């Protein structure tokens, strides 16, 4: 028995969901729901327990990094990619979030999906997703990470298109897959560049080799910068950042538990994880960091503005997810990787909760998703209301809820950040703050429209009912986590206190290289620390005031003056319609990219190249053969004497060639002599 059995057999953690997926997928079609539940929840639950045990052993061993090579997968030339898993503090956070939240959502889904067709298929896909996501976060090299990366994309596609008979769902699945492909293209190029430069894609070896390299200067497109930008392109696709975010809102066509697990809590954070995992490279590429920060910040703001006017409850949450992912990238971009991962974790709690609660609302309303046809639900589905309100307070950033701490540490890092002596940080901070205002507004708008005010649905048609216990239990656990999940960082607000989460991730992120031009959170003297502490308190106070302001505006608009939003929409019609149509980005992409591609595919590739070129060549050869045959056929008349004539003619031709051909003739005659 090895000393740390679970770490030694770490592959069990991802393998269990794969087994569950296979068993349900192969045999589940004929099984009753109960057995499928046992397999699906059992495999993920065991995986969660295994992950807990592995984490416990990891702490007990006191190592900074546990790493084990299980088998070699690809070996060619100097290149080796193995099935190598690793565990460090970053992995601990990710693995616990993935298995823990994933398990809760599995439990929830047994209630939510109870009356749906294709029950076994759903859980098979969901387990498959867990497998790939665990591979992604446990992988010890970029190649294996990419396997998980593509695998979660596949599961995402399958689950978005779960109701594949509905065209919009099938289309949304394809859209997600294709948009992600654009990002993956960059990701692969980034991997190639890293391999070409450093000769390895293993995290430990790669970062060790990259360590002595000088950092790229600001504005200089060196190897680090290009590789990081390419990796970030992949992250943009997976984590729905500008300009590749368009697939995520459409992904809401999938069942709500899928939206919660894949399109809010785990998969979409994979991009953030990759950036954080590659922090060694990113911290040497200030230009790429600035790009990450700007894209993150812009996405956060941009998506939040769209979220203001959406009426579909899931769409609001989808844009909110895009916006919050922007926050995480902002944190990574300003070098506060631990703050980004912190927000990733708290966001996983409260956004999963928001989606699950929204699912509970939709369940209660019998499938209705339009908030304008809800209202006054707070009394009828009390538990859903309470948990959703908790999550809303968390995302809006009210203390002591989780979102307050993570968002605050991101804004603080953005504020303190400097690029090349210019205070880009203030701009980033400003946008972050405005986004916080918008977030509080649209989330409370959702709460007020859904749970308060007059009921705007027909009570005779909709029988509002609270969800079953197996749906409410995950809601409550997640609500608890949404409250306490941020407390790890809470002591930082006390004089001389520390952010325990940042301290926990310290071993992973401490070797951050700080170039002269790129400065983040330098060690401070005592007086400076006190100053920083008061700054932190000030910023936190401002953030709370801003969140409060957003809430008050939402309250005023949607509770006190119910007619006011419509009037406001009328008076600012151009802005309102632009927002309602999501800045026409989908239309823009359709006109600028999809239409031309479609035109080229139809007219050039299909009609010109395929039909005229390839088909034309093949058919032309066949037709030519037929025509020649038709012509030559007449020579074979069956008349022996005509054959004799041909023989004679042939003989004469041969003789003519021998005697009169200017080049060959003499040689042939010479041979005869």
């Amino acid at each position, binding site marked *: 028995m090895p000393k740390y059995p679970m770490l030694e057999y770490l592959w069990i953690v991802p393998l269990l969901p794969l087994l569950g997926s296979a068993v349900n997928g192969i045999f589940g079609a004929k099984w009753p729901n109960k057995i499928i539940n046992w397999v699906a929840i059992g495999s993920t639950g065991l995986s969660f327990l295994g992950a807990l045990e592995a984490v416990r052993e990891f702490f007990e061993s006191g190592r900074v990094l546990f790493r084990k090579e299980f088998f070699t997968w690809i070996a060619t030339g100097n290149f080796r990619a193995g099935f190598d898993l690793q565990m460090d503090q970053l992995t601990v956070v990710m693995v616990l979030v993935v298995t823990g939240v994933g398990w809760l959502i599995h439990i929830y889904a047994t209630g939510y999906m109870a009356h749906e067709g294709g029950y076994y298929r759903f859980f098979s896909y969901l387990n498959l997703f867990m497998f790939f996501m665990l591979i992604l976060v446990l992988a010890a090299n970029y190649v294996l990470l990419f396997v998980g990366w593509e695998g979660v994309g596949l599961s995402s596609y399958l689950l978005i298109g779960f109701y594949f008979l509905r065209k919009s769902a099938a289309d949304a699945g394809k859209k997600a897959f294709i948009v992600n492909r654009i990002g993956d293209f960059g990701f692969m190029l980034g991997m190639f560049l890293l391999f070409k430069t450093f000769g390895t894609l293993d995290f430990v070896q790669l970062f060790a080799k990259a360590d002595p390299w000088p950092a790229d200067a600001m504005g200089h497109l060196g190897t680090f910068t290009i590789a990081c930008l390419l990796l970030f392109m992949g992250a943009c696709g997976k984590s729905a950042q500008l300009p590749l975010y368009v697939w995520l809102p459409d992904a809401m066509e999938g069942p709500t538990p899928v939206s919660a697990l894949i399109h809010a809590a785990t998969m979409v954070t994979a991009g953030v994880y990759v950036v954080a995992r590659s922090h060694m490279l990113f911290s040497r590429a200030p230009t790429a960091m600035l790009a990450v920060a700007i894209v993150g910040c812009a996405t956060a703001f941009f998506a939040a503005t769209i979220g203001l006017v959406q009426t579909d409850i899931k769409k609001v949450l989808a844009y909110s997810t895009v916006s919050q992912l922007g926050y995480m990238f902002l944190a990574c971009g300003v070098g506060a990787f631990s703050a980004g991962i912190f927000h990733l974790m708290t966001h996983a709690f409260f956004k999963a909760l928001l989606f699950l609660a929204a699912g509970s609302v939709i369940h209660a309303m019998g499938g209705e998703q339009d908030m304008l046809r809800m209202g006054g639900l707070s009394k009828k589905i009390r538990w859903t209301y309470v948990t959703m309100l908790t999550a809303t307070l968390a995302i809006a950033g009210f203390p002591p809820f989780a979102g307050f701490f993570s968002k605050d540490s991101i804004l603080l890092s953005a504020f303190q950040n400097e690029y090349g002596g210019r205070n880009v940080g203030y701009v980033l901070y400003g946008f972050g703050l405005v986004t916080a205002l918008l977030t509080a507004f649209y989330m409370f708008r959702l709460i007020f429209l859904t749970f308060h005010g007059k009921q705007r649905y027909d009570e005779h048609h909709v029988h509002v009912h609270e969800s079953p216990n197996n749906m409410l239990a995950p809601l409550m656990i997640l609500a608890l986590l949404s409250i306490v999940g941020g407390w790890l960082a809470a002591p930082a607000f006390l004089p001389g206190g520390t952010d325990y989460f940042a301290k926990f991730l310290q071993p992973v992120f401490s070797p951050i290289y700080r170039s002269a031009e790129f400065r983040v959170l330098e060690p401070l003297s005592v007086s400076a620390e006190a100053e920083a502490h008061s700054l932190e308190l000030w910023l936190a106070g401002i953030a709370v005031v801003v969140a409060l302001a957003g809430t008050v505006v939402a309250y005023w608009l949607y509770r006190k003056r119910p007619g006011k939003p419509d009037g406001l929409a009328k008076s600012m019609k151009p802005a309102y319609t632009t927002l309602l149509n999501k800045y026409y980005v989908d239309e823009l992409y359709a006109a600028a990219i999809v239409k031309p591609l479609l035109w080229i595919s139809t007219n050039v590739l299909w009609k010109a190249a395929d039909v005229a070129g390839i088909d034309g060549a093949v058919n032309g050869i066949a037709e030519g053969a037929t025509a020649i045959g038709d012509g030559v056929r007449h020579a*074979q*008349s*069956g*008349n*022996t*004497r005509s054959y*004799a*004539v041909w023989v*004679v003619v042939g003989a004469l031709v041969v003789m003519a060639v021998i005697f009169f051909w200017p080049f060959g003739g003499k040689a042939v005659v010479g041979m005869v002599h």
Partner: protein
Amino acid sequence: MVPTNYYVILSAILFGLGVFAFIFKRNIITIFMSIELMLNAVNLAFVAFSQALGKLDGQVFVLFVIVVAASEAAVGLGIIILIARNRQTLNVERVDLLKL
């Protein structure tokens, strides 16, 4: 001594006559004879070259050709007699049932 050229030219003339008769004659007997004529034209060329080169190979071939021609005559005349009996004609243009 007669130069080899003469033999060869005579052989070519005989062969040409045979070809001409084979193509343009309709009587099956005549066609058959023209084939014999061509074979013997070739025999003549063989013998001529054999003598000119001082080797016996050509004459051996002539013996082969004569044997083949004899057997061909036996089989061919048998066929001709059958055709004459069955079709009451020796005109090849009337014996064209296998034509397209």
